[in-house]
């Protein structure tokens, strides 16, 4: 995970305990929703909440291993790369996250530039 971002671009989004194990929560940003996942192993990932297939909300899917199955038509998306796994083709953007002993941050540099 890229942790060399300038500190001002890290946005606090809450605590790891806000997300259920093998679950996800959304974060609203000016450029749409970001889905923040917590795996069974307590790893945190953030990706766009927008399935590459037909835009399904990935944050609502079932989390298994480091992948999520989209609730609309069962595409399986890797949380690490944002890429669709198996036979399907497509990808969503991944967002850098930082976990400081449970306090979570996401990096939004590109979003900020776009929003200004």
């Amino acid at each position, binding site marked *: 995970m890229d942790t060399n971002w300038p500190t001002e671009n890290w*946005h606090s989004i809450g605590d790891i305990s806000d997300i259920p*194990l093998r679950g996800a929560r959304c974060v609203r940003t000016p450029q749409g929703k970001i889905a923040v996942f917590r795996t*069974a*192993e307590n790893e945190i990932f953030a990706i766009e909440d927008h399935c590459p297939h037909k835009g399904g909300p990935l944050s*609502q899917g*079932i989390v298994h291993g480091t992948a999520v*199955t989209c609730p609309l038509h069962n595409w399986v998306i890797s949380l690490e790369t944002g890429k669709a796994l198996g036979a399907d083709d497509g990808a969503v953007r991944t967002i850098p996250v930082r976990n400081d002993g449970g306090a979570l941050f996401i990096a*939004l540099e590109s*979003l*900020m530039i776009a929003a200004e």
Partner: protein
Amino acid sequence: MAHQTPEKLVIVGNGMAPGRMLEELFEKAKGRYDVTIFNAEPRVNYDRIMLSPVLSGEKAYTDIVIHDDAWYATNGVTLHKGAKVAQIDRAARTVTAENGITATYDKLVIATGSSPFIIPVPGHQLPGVLAYRDLDDVEKMLAGSRDGGRAIVIGAGLLGLEAAYGLKRQGMDVTVIHLMPTIMERQLDPAAAYLLEKALTERGIEIVTKANTKRILGETKVEGIELEDGRIIGGSMVVMAVGIRPASNLAKEAGIAVNRGIVVDDGMMTSDAAVYALGECAEHRGTCYGLVAPLYESARVLADRLAGGEAEYHGSVTNTKLKVTGINLFSAGDFADGEGREEIVLRDATAGVYKRLVLRDNRIIGAVLYGETSDGSWFFDLMKKGADITAMRETLIFGQAYQGGSPLDPTAAVAALPDDAEICGCNGVCKGKIVATITGKGLTSLDEVRAHTKASASCGSCTGLVEQVMSLTLGEAYNPAAVQPMCTCTELGHDDVRRLIKAKGLKTIPAVMQELEWKTSCGCAKCRPALNYYLVSDWPDEYADDYQSRFINERVHANIQKDGTYSVVPRMWGGVTNSGELRAIADVVDKFEIPMVKVTGGQRIDLLGIEKEDLPAVWADLGKAGFVSGQAYAKGLRTVKTCVGSDWCRFGTQDSTGLGIRIEKFMWGSWTPAKLKLAVSGCPRNCAEATCKDIGVICVDSGFEIHFAGAAGLDIKGTEVLGLVRTEDEALEHIVALTQMYREQARYLERIYKWTKRIGVEEIRRQIMDDAERRKAFFDRFVFSQKFAQVDPWSERVSGKDKHEFRPMATVGFSQAAE
């Protein structure tokens, strides 16, 4: 290099790390230093990691001393016992202890270790609240345990569990409180944690997970604790084992750079060139270590530096073992799943073994071993070396001694069943009987076994298991038909899994995965919802529904739509409504600007296009008008359509509306393998279309004709007739019993018509129509399960359940953008 006058080396702290460092130093450069040690503890250097065996009574203090008084004398080391250093004066190069002793140094080593973290909840200063760090703590625990009673250990990490085990051995009742859902979550994956929790529970240690301590109770001493959820646990001792903090204060006050620990470079030097830090108090490349092995590695580096060498410390890979007698546990490295990572999982349910290796680029990067840890050091070694394991990949998991072995026997789970385990539920045939009949009568085919034992002769869902019993008994001679596995995580089919859940009394998803030897550590989106259903269905009172294993609709109790909004369908019992309900719906539609209102095929009203965040508010308003969830999203009872029947219709023979409402009120809330839709028509004209439903009733003059196994979706199929009954009560009993039979026997996502096709109409009629006792038993089990299932999910959520599902976690970036 010979030195005329020895330099003065002062060490603050006399723990394991400086102890090892001195041994190395004396080997390399004896006589170079005049060594003085200050130790806050009033004793010599002992093996701290062996405190747990001292607590449990398996060892005595004298057994764990590393350096006795004679060692200090021989090596000319001055040891000030019970002398806690209060201050370092870097300008004068002196340290001063609380008791006034001062020493001058040329080189100083700070090795103050860590301090246990005490959660500052109310009551944490009461006598009887203890930490677990040194021999004094152990002595306090031993003294406290003499009066018996209950000890409460907060924190189920390595230390907490060792303390719990020791106190149990000393005769106390022990409860461990843990914040996270699984124990030792930093060292173990959930599968291994399940096994450990089971083993500790078997040893009489009570474990409460997902529990947050609110305060410690008691006036003058500990009397118990109160949890955040209001639960109270009584006890006379509280041991806090929730973590450690590097003891870096002394250095910080002296103006030495401190982050979490005292910052050192690769030569263990602090920001002051005359001062080194070693052990748990040091922070190297951002990491503070809390285990002995890495500390010993850095101790060797420091010894070399002090002897004039150039050695460098580059960080360590660590592994953990739990020291609880009879429990073998090993974990090392990074064992999370991930992209480009593969896992090899081996489970041997009989022996209670779980092994998992995580690989990346054909190299081991993590390992969790439970039950059988003898290969831990071999795996750890391969991992540290980054060895390419391609050549031995197939047999790697079996360990060093087992290269070239055969893969696991798929019949292991059945082999492990006791003789009295029930294999065939329909006919109540146990494993022992099947085995005895096969051998006694020399049976060789499935049909013979069916004929002689009746096992698998009824619904047939136990066929897979019966065949496995045959394989076990007949060996190579028997070749069972292939079973379609549930998913790629297991070799077992749905039916086998369902039977084994019952036969082995498996009551959690990790339990199923371990005991049935799942090939993945946490399943997939196919098997998890299925297992969750089977467990809900089989253990209605005991199983805690795993929401993260449910599809989104069942998690948020609404139907997700293509644009990510939701639809909400309130129950309209039997399709009957009134002006008050319609007005309430109209108000909700206006208030939340609901874009679409549609009458469904199930005789109720669908509100579409609602934002997820609005769901609880919509439900709150609907709830005020008396609506509950229509469960239009559930693999469960959906609707009971009715016609107006004898109350209004000139053809009506019975009160079809009344019966429909009665059935719906009886059955709502129940989970089923797939959705379940019913209908009741008041006469054979069948206006409620009951003959294409999962279960339908056609009222006739002489009573109620019960139908089932219809379909009007992807497949179209008219119903089968179950039979005719005289009274409404009987109709209800038969319908409920049929539903329960379906709930217990069908595969997840299998509609009732497919299940019927598989096991046969005759068999269902036999069990429901002809066997009154069995019917009654099905009925009773359904009623029991409804006690736990009939809770309106909407009102639960209006009162705050699962809040996190309906709110974004955060909103970021907007205010800055506006500026």
